[in-house]
């Protein structure tokens, strides 16, 4: 008598389910083996308030906002590791929780692993990696958070580093949406995230 006589459809379904679940397990195991892209900064801690030297709040004498106003805020140094294979470019974006583009550094070459502190506005500086450009929603460089230190508003700033398989073909005044659209389908792995609240509690 063949063993197939004892196999009922219900058992088959169970068997298929078991195979499916084990495949999910295998996929997870693969995730575990590859270290994830990590974004960090020597001077800024993840989930901690952004230091005041990087903010308009801490460096500007008045709270009056006028376009083109210069302030002493500089960008913090940023570094990353565990870059996925096949990465030829990076995009770093800093947005707040209402999706304002606070800083974007686009087309960072794939062999770069860090950004220096205090990259000046404009794209000619040697502090900026070759071929990259940067901007904010209102300037061609770092502008810095302007949230108040008194409990007026709760502002959360999201740093996201996207590893890409190629440089983007976007203009130097590209908006956040344009950059996101251009990146679609070109990620080589997970984006890395860092979150800094500002500026209540910043020092």
């Amino acid at each position, binding site marked *: 008598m063949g063993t197939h006589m004892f196999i009922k459809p219900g058992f088959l379904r169970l068997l298929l389910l078991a195979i499916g679940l084990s495949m999910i397990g295998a996929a*997870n195991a693969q995730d575990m083996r590859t270290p*994830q892209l990590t974004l960090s900064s020597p001077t800024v801690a993840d*989930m*901690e308030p952004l230091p005041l030297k990087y903010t308009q709040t801490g460096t500007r004498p008045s709270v009056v906002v006028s376009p083109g106003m210069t302030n002493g805020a500089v960008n913090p140094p940023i570094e990353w590791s565990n870059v996925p294979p096949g990465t030829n470019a990076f995009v770093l974006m800093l947005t707040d929780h209402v999706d304002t583009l606070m800083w974007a550094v686009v087309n960072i070459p794939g062999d770069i692993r860090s950004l220096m502190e205090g990259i000046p506005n404009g794209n000619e500086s040697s502090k900026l990696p070759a071929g990259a450009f940067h901007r904010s929603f209102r300037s061609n460089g770092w502008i810095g958070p302007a949230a108040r230190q008194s409990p*007026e*508003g*709760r502002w959360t700033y999201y740093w996201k580093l996207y590893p890409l398989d190629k440089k983007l073909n976007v203009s130097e005044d590209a908006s956040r949406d344009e950059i996101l659209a251009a990146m679609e389908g070109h*990620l*080589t792995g997970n984006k890395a995230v860092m979150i800094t609240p500002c500026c*209540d509690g910043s020092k």
Partner: protein
Amino acid sequence: MMNFRRCIFREAEFHPMMRQRGIKKALSWLGGLAIVAASCGVAAGQNAGSEPPAGPRILVPNPRSDAEPVSGGGPAPDVAPGPGHPRQPTIRSTAFADYGWLPLKYAPNAAKMVTFDASSPPLAWTAPPQGTVSVVLTMTDLETSSGGNPQDQLLWAVVNLPPSTRLLAESTTRGRTAMLPAAAFQLSFLTNGYIGPMPGANLHAHHYLFELYTLDKLLEVPRDVTLDQLKAAMKGHQTGQRGVLVVKCCVNSR
């Protein structure tokens, strides 16, 4: 609101009746009116939400969870209004701090997919801004695999909560449950309830966002709505800034 309108209608037809018919009939109507008025009072208490002790306490029928009122009547939970309130509702959890670590209790799937009945964390928030008709809560993972579907970052959404709801009790049961107010429903990208951090979060910390959107209408979205569809449906209907609660999981979670 509906009940309340009906009450006014009953009251209007009561007065001519008292003139035409005898006092006995009027008294029996008065009794009926008293009952209707009482039920109206209860309904009004539920709608107001912030009225302290008026409404009934709705007990959670799920024996696994603590018996807590989940919506409607009773006092609003004790959430101190934070920065930005009331334009931005303040959302908090008693189980973890803002910018803290999500307890492992709420992340059973962080190492390996083991259950579709994950226990959701308790959440409470302050009153939404004026003109809010419905409230949507979402929980998203900022570090989902880029190789996967981008909709997979939706780990929890509770849609069409009434503005009177100020808290979700711990372990909000999956599916259409008495723990949720009538019009509300919940889902994750994978289930009809909270799923929590997915495998991989035990090795590399992920950032998770709880977002509380206050809207000027009830959403007409399917019960298996995707994150993009949900965002598209909410666009242009927010009554204020969304409340945000940020946690990490699970490397240093306990």
